């Protein structure tokens, strides 16, 4: 595993539902990557991650390295890109390509 470098975002899964979460502004958990708060300071991000690691609501709090481009932040590693975007499988017969849920 490559050494973690800033910038990063903070992610977790929702304990009750398992859904992927990203920490947004004002330390609110959001369901989409686009709203994630980007941390340029790794130490600050680590401290924040420890603060928001509430075992009664979230599970697996961790930092994810991102890169900044013209369209905003995006995960550096493909694993996190897949995690952020959802399964990349084809759509079901009769479903639209926007509703990619495998099958």
């Amino acid at each position, binding site marked *: 595993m490559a050494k973690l470098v800033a910038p990063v975002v903070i992610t977790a899964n929702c304990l*009750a*539902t398992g859904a992927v979460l990203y920490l947004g502004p004002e330390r609110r958990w959001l369901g989409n990557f686009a709203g994630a708060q980007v941390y340029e300071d790794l130490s600050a991000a680590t401290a924040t991650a420890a603060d928001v690691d509430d075992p009664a609501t979230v599970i697996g709090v961790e930092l994810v390295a991102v890169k900044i481009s013209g369209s905003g932040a995006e995960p550096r590693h493909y694993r996190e890109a897949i995690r952020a975007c959802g399964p*990349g*499988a084809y759509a079901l017969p009769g479903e639209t390509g926007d509703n990619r*849920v495998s*099958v």
Partner: protein
Amino acid sequence: MGLAPTRFPVKLVITVYRYNDFDRQFLRERVAQYRDQVKRRLSGALTEEEFKPLRLMNGVYLQLHAYMMRVAIPYGTLSAHQMRGLADIAERWDRGYGHFTTRQNIQFNWPKLVDTPDILAALADLDMHAIQTSGNTIRNVTTDHLAGAALDEIADPRPYAEWIRQWSTDHPEFQFLPRKFKIAISGGVTDRAVVRAHDIGLRLVPGMDGVAFDVYVGGGLGRTPVVGTRLFEQVPVSELLAYLEAIVAVYNLHGRRDNKYKARIKILLHTMGLDNFKKEIKSYIEQNSDAFNGLELADLARIQAGFEMQALPPREGGAYWERINAEPSFREWVERVVTPHRKEDYASVTISLKAHGQAPGDATAAQMRAMADLADAVGFSELRVSHQQNIVLPHVALADLPEVFERLCRHGLATANIGLISDLIACPGMDYCALATARSIPIGQRIATRYEPMEQLLGPLSIKISGCINACGHHHIGDIGILGLDKAGMEHYQVTLGGRPGLDTALGEKMGPGFSEAELMGALDRLFDRYLTLREASSEAFAETVLRLGTEPFKAALYGVEHAA
């Protein structure tokens, strides 16, 4: 008393095992325990560290995007009623589909933790559960998907598989083994259960009491693939559980717990040596001879009687013979998906869950219901899940095949590709799995669609894709194995050639450096061109050409090197 081999008269078959009151009470209590565990976790009374082993014991994982529940389908057999119930679960608590796995189970990829107790309760109402589908325990016992129907069958392995399931479920000593433990059992002359790729592989052979068991130990794929060794021959039915108990107990005692990559029984066998291992087994059996005193045979008799018995009435072929001669699409489907049955007016039908471009092994709730309805209509209400991630109707009268074809066509389930390149196995890979190092489903989809126009030309060919070294996609035993790895932050795919399942199991030979996804398709193009050039006749399958010539010319093709031949 239970020792009669489970080879029934040709006109009789057993279908599904009926739970008794004890089984149902056991499941109800287990669901109640789990419901309380979830409640305590959500209230904060249990930490994740405390809760994780409890949810895993009930088949609940946390994956990449969501929780996943793996439901046991013992030896791949389920009733139409159960299949319909799985469809209801998929619609009510998941996203309307399920994924059939290489261990003949089904996985739901999107359940919410808060709903999992209700899902387990719904499963219990179906006489189903998710117990021991995870964790370091004895997992779902797998077997031949053609059990009870195959022409070459020595005995139906499923009563023995159920016997092993009941022995191993909640076994007090075997809930925390060094690692997970997998058992397969085959009842045919041909091994369709890949017994030599299991921690214990059992093969029914003619013997005392009509049948006996050859016992293979120490097989497994994964990080260190090993072909299982036949350690014991002609083990009588009356001694089977004593042998199984001894093997697992010796493994439990001596297996490594300090390094999970060296914790499987195959490593122990290698470390101890075959002779020492066998001595330990014999010694354990002698010391514990009181534990198996014949009561277990009464259990086997009870279990055999617990299976529903079904008579297959004689049927005239009728419309089948007219249609097979008149309609090419029907004939092509029959040639690909129908397997001869031991009763000559019947057949087994494999329903492909590999429509080109579809995720291998996935079925929608509507498709599950369609298959259940079909099983009720023409298949004696029984279905099987194959380790190749397809569904099988084991007993269908030839006369009913036209109706089966028409109904499957209506539901997108009549793809005539069994045994062809698009009938590939792929694990969930990084689209779902938290352990994966690369995606496998999209690779499978690309291969299936890319080579669809030439798959008849290529003939029988198995591709198996794993998204990590754990090898859930069985890539070691594919004609072509593809292993997805993370190479410097990029998905790369390593190719193996020459693997095969069966009693002469062979592990594929690694060809060389991995390919990017884009490079992989070009490499496969060259590989298939080389095969089509080198095969002696169109009847020589890819695997046969590789066996005849060795892998070298194909390795050269993969990497774009000219070959002199």
